[in-house]
């Protein structure tokens, strides 16, 4: 007994202190490194776009007014907003490209969000354990399919099928591109929603069942609302992925930069434009800066949507915990 009392309680403290400090420094460092990297990407992209503000030669042809507002002579909006970067008088309207991005994103989310959430609900609430073990990895495997393969599939198979079934004038259009994009978004929505649903505590479900709710009512009225922050987060991430996705849209969208609200017209997105044109553009040209500005725009858009999403999710979670 006496011996025990003599044990020095401060022994080992120093070593542990140093280890803890070291780990803290390593992790903090890694975190800051990631942030620094993102900031650098932004800085370098934006630096290439900067001449549209600073260089009079460039800004004469490529400027914000040109990108977002300017209409050229024409009767239809299709003729008024034109992206035609090469030619005697280059036209740099972003409007057709923004519309293309929005249309593809809209169709993609329209497809992926309901199906992803329904599949997640099925997998977490209704599927027998054996089936569940099979569904989850299969859908997650979809995320591993290279976009170029999905694009190829949409270009050859999906487009013909859609045209034969619905009689579209153009084989490649927003429906085709959007659906192919939706296949890529599905695993994003599914995985995050499913994780959110399966982490809803079991005792919520028991409470509901004990009140005489069916499994369906329990899933719909208790599990889904409790998992709503995760479901919403999955939509935000899917949106970010959608506006950045390039290869699928380049291949399946018809690659026509036309200002049209119709989903059965071909389209061209911001990202596809960058991918298609950056390889051939003349360095320092107004076109070059315009493409980099487009990149900056995509960057900011993703960043803003993710931050806004985070904020809303945080609010939803606090609301649920009863803090406001």
């Amino acid at each position, binding site marked *: 007994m006496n011996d025990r009392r003599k044990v020095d309680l401060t022994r080992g403290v120093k070593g542990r202190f140093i280890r803890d400090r070291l780990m803290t420094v390593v992790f903090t460092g890694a975190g800051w490194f990631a942030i620094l990297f993102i900031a650098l990407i932004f800085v370098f992209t934006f630096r290439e776009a900067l001449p549209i503000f600073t260089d009079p030669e460039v800004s004469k042809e490529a400027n914000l007014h040109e990108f977002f507002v300017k209409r050229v002579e024409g009767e239809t909006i299709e003729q008024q907003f034109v992206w035609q970067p090469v030619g005697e008088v280059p036209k740099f309207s972003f409007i057709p490209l923004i519309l293309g991005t929005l249309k593809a994103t809209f169709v993609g989310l329209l497809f992926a969000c309901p199906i992803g959430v329904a599949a997640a609900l099925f997998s977490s609430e209704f599927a027998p354990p054996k089936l569940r073990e099979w569904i989850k990895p299969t859908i997650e495997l979809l995320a591993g399919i290279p976009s170029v393969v999905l694009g190829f599939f949409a270009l050859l198979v999906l487009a013909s099928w859609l045209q034969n079934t619905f009689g579209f004038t153009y084989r490649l259009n927003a429906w085709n591109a959007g659906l192919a994009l939706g296949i890529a978004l599905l695993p994003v929505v599914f995985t995050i929603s499913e994780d959110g649903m399966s982490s809803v*505590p079991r005792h919520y479900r*028991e409470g509901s069942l*004990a009140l*005489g709710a069916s499994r369906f009512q329990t899933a719909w009225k208790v599990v889904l609302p409790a998992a709503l922050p995760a479901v919403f987060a999955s939509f935000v991430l899917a949106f970010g992925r959608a506006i950045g996705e390039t290869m699928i849209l380049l291949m399946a969208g018809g690659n026509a930069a036309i200002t049209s609200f119709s989903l059965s017209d071909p389209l061209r997105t911001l990202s596809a434009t960058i991918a298609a044109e950056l390889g051939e553009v003349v360095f320092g040209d107004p076109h070059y800066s315009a493409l980099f500005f487009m990149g900056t725009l995509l960057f900011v858009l993703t960043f803003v949507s993710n931050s806004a999403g985070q904020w809303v999710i945080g609010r939803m979670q606090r609301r649920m915990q009863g803090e406001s």
Partner: protein
Amino acid sequence: MNVTTINMSAGDRQSEERATKIHEEPEASPKIQVRDFNFFYGDLHVLHDIALDIPEKQVTAFIGPSGCGKSTFLRSINRMNDIIPGARARGTLMLDNQDLYAKAVDVVALRRKVGMVFQKSNPFPKSIYENVAYGLRIGGVNDRRILDDIVQTSLQRAALWDEVKDRLDSSAMALSGGQQQRLCIARALAVDPEVLLMDEPASALDPIATQKIEELVYELKSNYTIVIVTHNMQQAARVSDRTAFFMLGKLVEYDDTNTIFMNPKQKLTEDYITGRFG
């Protein structure tokens, strides 16, 4: 016998009343009748040949060491064990002379008749109002006036109304543990059950909140048949009319609470309630 350690003072009022009641009333037919009831989790045989009668509008307590099958038995009464894969029951468990494990029984209807309050309070992450209204809404009641009315009476019965009436629309998660547990009781009462199963409803609460729950149980028994699992001997002595002592999946002794605590017939029961093991 060493029962002096058990503090029965808070239950004096109840015990007296119980004593007179037992003399006056003839044996009523039991609310719940159990015969040869066995329960299995896969190959694990956790309840062995349970036989007991649970009287109507009284409080029956289940006591016994951890893992003896109290919760399993309680959850058999509203068939909550159905959701556990591989769980299986054998024997008869009758509610109002109706076999609960018969094929034709609708579990949804059963669970509306037999409400349940869990050990860990589990309000939904919704408003206080919506928590209480939940059972009604899923039952198809949507008339706001009816809902308002039942939400109020349920909260009043659960002795929570005065504390929450001004903030029915705020989240239930912001309530204290004791309030949450009473909310869960209100939620169970809202669907107008006949039996209320409570699995250690106060084990996570402080003494004052516990006392409130106990008073509530005492109030509620004039309208409901209550079965309560507890690890707290004093609590069983205070709130219950009948006590069943389980051990290793067997019903060791079942009798009036007074008899169980003052004059148990089995040596095992005596050892358990006097704290010689457990």
